[in-house]
Each structure stands twice: as C-alpha cells, then as structure tokens.
C-alpha cells in the first residue's frame, strides 16, 4: 500500500461514523473510572486502600488523576481529530447541498421517490405554473424554474425550504472542536510538558513556600492555572498552591492579596448563610490597589485571574487554657497559652504531653431536644395518621427541635511521649442538662470514632473548683480515714454503737480505696469476685449507698473548709455528689491526666481562596454557543424539497403533473405535510 493511500485509509477511518460512535462510547466509559475512584486524594489514602502491590500499578495507569492522564487526553485528541476530519469530509458537500436546488433531477428519479404522485394536467402549463409559484411562496419555499424536455416545452419547478438545516451540522461539530481546543488551552498540557522534560518537579515536602526551589515554582506568566491558598486575617499572600499528584507547585502571582477580615454569617439553624472576605489586592507592577469584598458566587477578576471565595478555616486563633490535673494529690491548676495549628508542651511532674490545638469553633448550634429523630409513635401509627401528620407547610416541625447555641469549643490532641494521642473537643461554656450545669469534654481515640463526653459538674455558683477539690479528696488515700469517720459519725443516729461506727468507717475506707483504683468498675469487679451471685444486686446497692454517703461527708467537710456561710444541707448536694462520683468514675477512662479548660480566646479566621486563570474559557463559551445554535438548527429546522414537473402533451401522452417531495429526515411530519401538498397540487392540476 502506498504512503498516500495509507493516509487516505486513516482519514476514512477517522471521519467515519462508526469510529466517532466508538470514541463517544470509550470516552463515556473512561469518564466513569474517575467518578468511581475518588480523584486527587493524598497518596497515603490510596496506599491504604489498594495495598503496596496495586498502588504503583494504578499510579502508573494515572487512575488517581484520570482526567489528566495521557491516555485520557489521547482519547480526547482522537475525538477532536475525528470530528475535524468529519467536518472536512462532509462540510463542503453540505454547503453545496444547501446552495443547490437539485434541478438536474430526471422524471425517473422523481417517480422513484417514496413521496410522489403523477396527475393529469387539465389546464395550461403556464396557468398552473403561476398557481404553483404562488403556493410555494406562501409556504416559505424558495424555488427555481427551468425548462425541460424536448424543445424546452416542459417546466420543472425545484423548490426547497429549511436548507439552513445543514448549517446545523457545521455549527455543532465545529462547536465541539472549539470546546475541546479551549479546554486543552486551560488544561495542564504545558505544565505536563515541562514535567516530562524535567524542567519542573513536583514538591512533596511540607516546607514554607519561600523555601520551595525554583524548579517547583511557576512564574506569573503561566497562562493557565487553578490553585488554592489560605490567608489568615491580617496576612497576605502572593502565591497559590497547585496540587498535582502527591505534591504541589507554587504559583507566583502578579499581585498580592491581603485579607482584612473574613465574615461568616449563619442561619438561625446554624447552617452557614454567607462567606465573604474583605480583600485588598495590590498589583506588583502598577502598584494599583483594589479593595473589594468577595463572596461565594461573586468573584473578583484582575488581569485575567479570578479570585474566588472557596472555603474558610481557623487562621490561628490564640487561646488561654487552664489545665486541671485530675489525679494528683495537690490539684493546682496551671495556665497554658495555645494557638490553633500549633502545639505546646505541658510538663506535670514526670509526665510530659504535647498539646496540639487542631481547631476552634466560635459557636456550636446543637439540637438539645430529647428526641431529635422523628418521633416513634408517628412511625408505628396507621398510614392515615402518618399522612395527616405530614400535611401542612414544608416548615420544619419546631416542636421536634430545640436548637441552641452552646458557645465556643476547641479541638485538640494530647500526645504522650510514645506518640499516642487522643482527640478532645471541649466546650467553653457550661451546658444545662436535666436541670444541672456541667462542663463538657468530648474524647475519642481515633478520628473515625464519635466523641464520648465527660461531664464535670459545677457548683451552685457555676464554678468547677468544688468538683476538683472533691475529687481530690475522694482519690487521696490520706483523706480516707477522715472521710470514713465523718461518714460513720452521721450514720444511723444514737442507737449505733461505737464499735459499729468503727466498722462502718473501716468499710467506707475500703470502698473508697476500691473506687479510687478504677471507679465504679473496680467496685463492681470486687463484688463479682467476692459476693455470691444471688446477693450481688443488693451488695451493689449498699456499696453505692456507702459511696454516696462518704462523698456527701466529703462535700460537707469541704463546705466547712471553704464556704462556711453555705448551709449544711443544700438540696442540690446529693445531685452534685452523685454527678461527682459518676464523673470521677468516668475520668478513669478519659485518657488524659488533665482537664484542659478553655478560658479565653482571640479569634483569627482564615479565608480559603481559589485563584484561576483560564484563557480558554471564552473560547469554550463560544464553542458552546455554536453547539447550542447548531443543535437547534439541526433538530428544529426540517429540510424539505419539492419538485413539480409540468409536462406538456406529447404525441403519445397527455399533459401531466409530477409532484415529488424529499427530506433528509424521515419523520411522520413529512408524510403529513406531503398529504397536504398533494391536495393543493391536485386542485391546481384541475385548474
């Protein structure tokens, strides 16, 4: 096969319908891959998901960024090639078709068309011709009249309507090529080329951007990019980060963006209503300053670079904490300063912990209703009742919810010397639950678990100190004899003998000792070991009574020491004492030797901006316009052709009229229309 004919064959293949449809299908299937596998995740996630064997295989296939993989781009390129050659192949003939009246047809051709009829002509050719022309004109046909037959005695009127239909083909297919070209301009092909030739290298280290070397930096002349940057309030940025593979490039900007203030507004339900950033943009070349507030759906565009409000984060809120040792004999609280995204070391005796502050939330809207799921009774009721319950407005059923702002919270991790960490979520303000006030501290061992909450009860003045003193008393072996005696002294009344009191004091001390090892759990373990099964419930009841009694004694003793004015029998005392016992017991499983209380904060927010430069955007939009225009033209302009041949009488035939119609679309509309024409022309043939 010669060189030329090989190209010819390739061209024929590319411009063929079958190839185009195959490409459309392949592209569709290839696109599915990227939606099934989450794209552009950190590589560690993929390793965890696929294991060390498959990870590099999938990486080589480009599955972590399918839409920029070379094989995917190749499919797209073939699509452009195929569509272009299709246009090249069909376009000229279509334009010719559009211009032509097809008045070279023969009678035989006409009579072979599916839509045709032949009638005897009962009036003069000229009179009929005039009627036909008027009819065609009325119905929006353009036509050409030519003389036919021997001596030009016959008349052919070739008419057409809707021939712009053909432009539709050109518009749609050119539109597609234009869109793909625009997309390629905005794609990362130039950057990919630089990577392949080794001129640019992805940065994978987590280092300050100023230290990123030139080989991983892109200049402001880069024509197309899409990157992100987080700017804390009061700071500025002149670069963005482009995430590629498992690393990033640093893109230098031709201007500096400073964030004055980030605003976030909420609906009463706590969902965000508006994000906005007050930014100041300073052009590095001209020194021009633009002050503007950008918000979601309202970007700022400067020098072809669009700046979008994309996300928000904490920008390094400064906080004061008070750490309360939970298990030391002298519970002296001490203060620590912390900043979001930073960590500090806490020394407490021998233990050393790192406090890593992860996040700060200035407020939290929680649903405090007991029942925050649809109510059970409605579910079990009959169908009619359920339907009735739904009738009404679409407003949320207010009775089911009790949304309240429970104030600021802080998220942090406490990491020990071995690197083990638990995650905590502490609310700054106390929360009222079942009538009493508590400080709440959530804890979880892994990010996927949900928080378990430790409740720290507050006294009637809303302070935490009393709880801390009380728990120190209960856990301190040195105070047990005192507490035991005070407990025994109050027991029973005058009937109790001194010996009995001594025994009571002794058993109270034993219970305390048990409780101080692991809370209620150790008491319960002890009962399981030493009490016959039948009596365990009763024993447990007695132990709890004793514990409550001792704790009450501790509460009274503490009261005398610290607040002598308070009456000895506070009605809240028993509740407080019970809460304290529960809390102390839970704190054995808390996972930290401190309770870290948030005392003060100075919020600093950060705005996440996305900056893009997409010079191909308007090209793509132009292509889209062509595409839509083309589809409308192609689908809604029907091309129709009519031929009316008026034949004069010959020696062996009468005068007759041949009518035929054709369209490049076979639809029922054509059949209907032809029936209409048939009637009209039949009438004309009679004169």
């Amino acid at each position, binding site marked *: 096969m010669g060189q030329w004919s090989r190209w010819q064959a390739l061209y024929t293949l590319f411009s063929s319908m079958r190839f185009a449809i195959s490409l459309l299908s392949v592209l569709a299937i290839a696109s599915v891959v990227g939606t099934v596998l989450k794209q552009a995740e950190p590589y560690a996630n993929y390793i965890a998901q696929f294991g060390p064997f498959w990870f590099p295989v999938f990486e080589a296939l480009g599955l972590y960024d399918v839409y920029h993989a070379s094989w995917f781009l190749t499919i797209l390129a073939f699509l452009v090639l195929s569509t272009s050659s299709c246009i090249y192949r069909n376009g000229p003939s279509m334009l010719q078709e559009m211009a032509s009246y097809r008045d070279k047809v023969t009678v035989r051709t006409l009579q072979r068309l599916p839509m045709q009829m032949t009638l005897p002509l009962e009036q003069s050719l000229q009179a009929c011709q005039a009627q036909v022309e008027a009819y065609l004109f009325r119905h929006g046909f353009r036509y050409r009249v030519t003389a036919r037959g021997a001596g030009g005695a016959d008349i052919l009127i070739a008419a057409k309507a809707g021939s712009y239909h053909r432009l539709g083909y050109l518009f749609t297919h050119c539109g597609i090529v234009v869109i793909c070209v625009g997309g390629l301009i905005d794609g990362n092909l130039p950057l990919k080329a630089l990577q392949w030739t080794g001129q640019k290298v992805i940065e994978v280290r987590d280092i300050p951007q100023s230290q990123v070397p030139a080989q991983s930096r892109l200049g402001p002349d880069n024509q197309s990019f899409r990157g992100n940057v987080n700017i804390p309030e009061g700071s500025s940025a002149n670069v963005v980060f482009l995430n590629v593979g498992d690393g990033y490039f640093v893109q230098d900007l031709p201007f500096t963006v400073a964030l004055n203030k980030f605003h976030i507004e909420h609906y009463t339900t706590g969902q965000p209503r508006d994000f906005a950033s007050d930014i100041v943009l300073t052009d590095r070349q001209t020194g021009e300053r633009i002050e503007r507030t950008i918000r979601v759906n309202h970007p700022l565009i400067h020098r072809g670079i669009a700046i979008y409000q994309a996300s928000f984060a904490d920008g390094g809120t400064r906080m004061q904490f008070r750490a309360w040792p939970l298990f030391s004999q002298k519970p002296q609280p001490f203060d620590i300063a912390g900043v979001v995204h930073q960590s500090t070391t806490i020394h407490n005796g021998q233990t050393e912990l790192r406090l890593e502050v992860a996040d700060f939330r200035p407020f939290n809207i929680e649903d405090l209703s007991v029942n925050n799921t649809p109510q059970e009774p409605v579910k079990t009721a009959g169908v009619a009742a359920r339907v009735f319950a*739904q009738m009404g407005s679409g407003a949320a059923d207010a009775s089911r919810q009790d949304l309240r702002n429970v104030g600021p919270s802080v998220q942090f991790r406490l990491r020990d010397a071995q690197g083990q960490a638990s995650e905590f979520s502490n609310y700054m303000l106390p929360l009222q639950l079942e009538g009493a006030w508590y400080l709440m501290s959530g804890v979880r061992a892994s990010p996927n678990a949900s928080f378990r909450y430790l409740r720290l009860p507050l006294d009637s003045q809303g302070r935490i100190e009393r709880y801390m003193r009380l728990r120190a008393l209960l856990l301190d072996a040195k105070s047990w004899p005192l507490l035991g005696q005070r407990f025994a002294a109050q027991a029973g009344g005058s009937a109790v003998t001194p010996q009995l009191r001594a025994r009571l004091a002794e058993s109270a001390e034993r219970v305390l000792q048990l409780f101080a090892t692991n809370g209620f759990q150790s008491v319960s373990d002890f009962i399981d070991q030493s009490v016959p099964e039948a009596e365990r419930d009763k024993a447990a009841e007695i132990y709890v009574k004793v514990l409550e009694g001792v704790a009450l004694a501790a509460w009274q003793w503490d009261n005398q020491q610290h607040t002598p004015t308070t009456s000895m029998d506070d009605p809240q005392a028993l509740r407080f004492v019970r809460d304290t016992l529960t809390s102390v017991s839970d704190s054995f499983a808390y996972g930290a030797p401190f309770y870290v209380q948030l005392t003060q904060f100075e919020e600093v927010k950060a705005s996440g901006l996305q900056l893009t430069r997409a010079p191909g955007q308007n090209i793509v939009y132009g292509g889209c316009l062509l595409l839509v225009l083309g589809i409308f033209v192609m689908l809604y302009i029907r091309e129709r052709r009519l031929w009316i041949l008026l034949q004069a009488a010959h020696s062996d035939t009468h005068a007759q009229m041949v009518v035929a119609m054709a369209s490049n679309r076979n639809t029922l509309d054509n059949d209907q229309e032809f029936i209409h024409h048939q009637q009209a022309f*039949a009438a004309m043939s009679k004169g």
Partner: protein
Amino acid sequence: MSSVPEPVEPEVLVARGLFKRSVWDWCYAVGLVLGSGWVLQRFGQWMDGYEQVILVAAVVALITLAWHWSAIRNLMWVLIAVSLCSVYWYQGQIARAQEVFFLKYLISSQTAIMWMCFFYALSALSYWSGLLGRVAALTAAGTRLLWVGVTAGLVGLLVRWYESYLISVDVGHIPISNLYEVFVLFTIITGLLYLYYEARYATRQLGAFVMLVVLAAVWFILWYTFDRGAHEIQPLVPALQSWWMKIHVPANFIGYGSFAIAAMIACAALLVDRGWLTQILPTPAVMDDLMYKVIALGFTFFTIATILGAMWAAEAWGGYWSWDPKETWALIVWLNYAAWLHMRLIKGVRGPLLAWWAVIGLFVTMFAFVGVNMFLSGLHSYGQL
C-alpha cells in the same frame, strides 16, 4: 395515477399569525404582562438584574408556550388563583398552615404534594385499566387525573416557595434546591411533557407506560418524606444562592423528563416488537417518531443545562469544568444520547436496537440524577441521601 388521500390539516402547516389569536390568548398575554409588571414594580428592588431578566423571559416563554398549547393557559389561571388564595389564607404566618382548613387539607405545600401523589396513582390506575380493558373513557380519565396531579404538584411547589419566605426572609428560595424538591419537579415536568405529546399525537395508550416512571418517583418522594423527613424546607448553602439555579435546574429536568418518557415509549415499542398489545398500542412508526422527538427535545435542553451548569460552576467554584462526578455523569449522559442521535439520523438505525438503547439511557440518566448523590461525593453534594 395515485389517488389523492382524505384531507387533513397537519399541525406543521397551520400557520397562525399574531392577529389570528383568540381573545383568550390575548387576555392571557396581557394578564401575564401586567401581573409581572406589578411584581417588578413592587418587588423589583429585592431582585438583582439577572432575576428581573429571568422573570421577563419566563413571561415571554409562558405566553409562547400557551399560545402554542392552549391547555397551559388554563393551568396558569388555576395556579395564579390558588397562589393568591394561599397568600390570602396565610396572612404572612406560616403557623396558619395548621389552623386554616383549606391550607391544612388542600393547598399548603406538603398537603398539595400529597394530593399530587394521590392523583398520579389514580391516573396510573385509570391509564392501565383503560389500556388493558380497552375502555377509552378510562384512558381519557387518566389524562384528566394526570392534569389534576400536575396542577397539585405545581401548587405544592409554588406555595412551598412562598412558605420558605414565611419561615424567614433569608431562608426564602425557589423550591428546586434539593433532591426532594427536584423529584417533585421531575414528576411535574415528565407529566407535562407527556401530556403535550399525548395531545399532539393522540396516543393516550402510552400514558400507562409513562406513569410507571412517575409512580417510581412518587414512591421515592413518599419514602424520602416518611422515612427521612426530607420534605422540610432547608435554607440554602451559599454556593446555591444564585440566579443560575433558576435556569440550570429546570433545563436539566426537561432533559431528564424527556429521556424518561423516551425510555417508557421504548418499552412499549419493545412489547409491540414482540407481538404484544399490537392491537392497542400505537404503530411502531408513530412510537419511533415520538421517541426521536422526545429525545431531540431532551438532548437540546440537556445540552443547554450542562452549559449553564458549567457557566455557574465558573462563577461559584472557580472553574467551568472540574470533572466533579455530577459533571462527569452529565457528560456521559450527553455522549450517550449524542451517539443515539447519530445512530438514528446518520446510520438510519430503527427498531429494537434504538429502543433498548433508550431504555439503557434511562438507567444512565437515573444514575446521573440520583446515583451520583447516593454513591459518589463531590462538589455537588447538596442532595445527599
């Protein structure tokens, strides 16, 4: 010599000039123009320029549509009357939905949507018994019941729109913003599109098939309401607060609705192809033609919707194309129907192959519509199940 057939007046050639319109056509047009003029004057200050343009364009579209298909005119009068009643009965207080009888049992949004579901079910029943029992009166009743259902659904959405503003002015928004609302929209658009083609092609028998899709959507709406409580009006996240939503979403659902109808006609065509119900259902040629018309319409609107989505994305997310799962699946749907049209128009393929393709197309469409929200996550995750 061929004989001349019986006279008919093909729709395509019935040219009706501007001045051959009936008095009612003109009343309707003038009514809409005056009404929207009043709205612009009274509420224009709270609408941005784009929203004002959308309002004017909607009026033009509604006039054109009703002049082309007079049933829309009556529908619009009913909707306007009911909306005004709801404004009157609510008196600006959302709680009155529980107190006023007509609101509670007739036109508050949830009630109206329940009625919608009820009438869809009745309509499906009528269509099927009419089809299988060959009782023309029953299929005719199916059509009328479908009209009632569609009207109830539109009332539900319109009143819901108003209710959202009653909850709080900043919560107020057009009710096409989450999966629940667009499912209602889907049934309405599918119903209306079908009614249009039914009127044009006189093919009542296909109603039974189309109603199957609508019933599936009704089932979903009920499950979503009773099991998930998804019917509650939620405020809009910032990314959705844009006039783009008002054009992007409806355009998309004209596409989805058309594709759904095409698939159901394809089912009927496949039955006929096997020799079932041949006496009752329309001829293959008619169904084939209908299928093409519907897919062509859907394809046009779906193309526009996808482009509008891209333009919105450029404004909200900073890029007109991010290969987000929803976008990608829209592309897949689009490629599928582009291939379908090529097969039919250029290869001249007809019959079972194209019918099967249209049925599979519905599954692809449904995945893009619901599946993506259920199984994949991305920027479009507003309508998470």
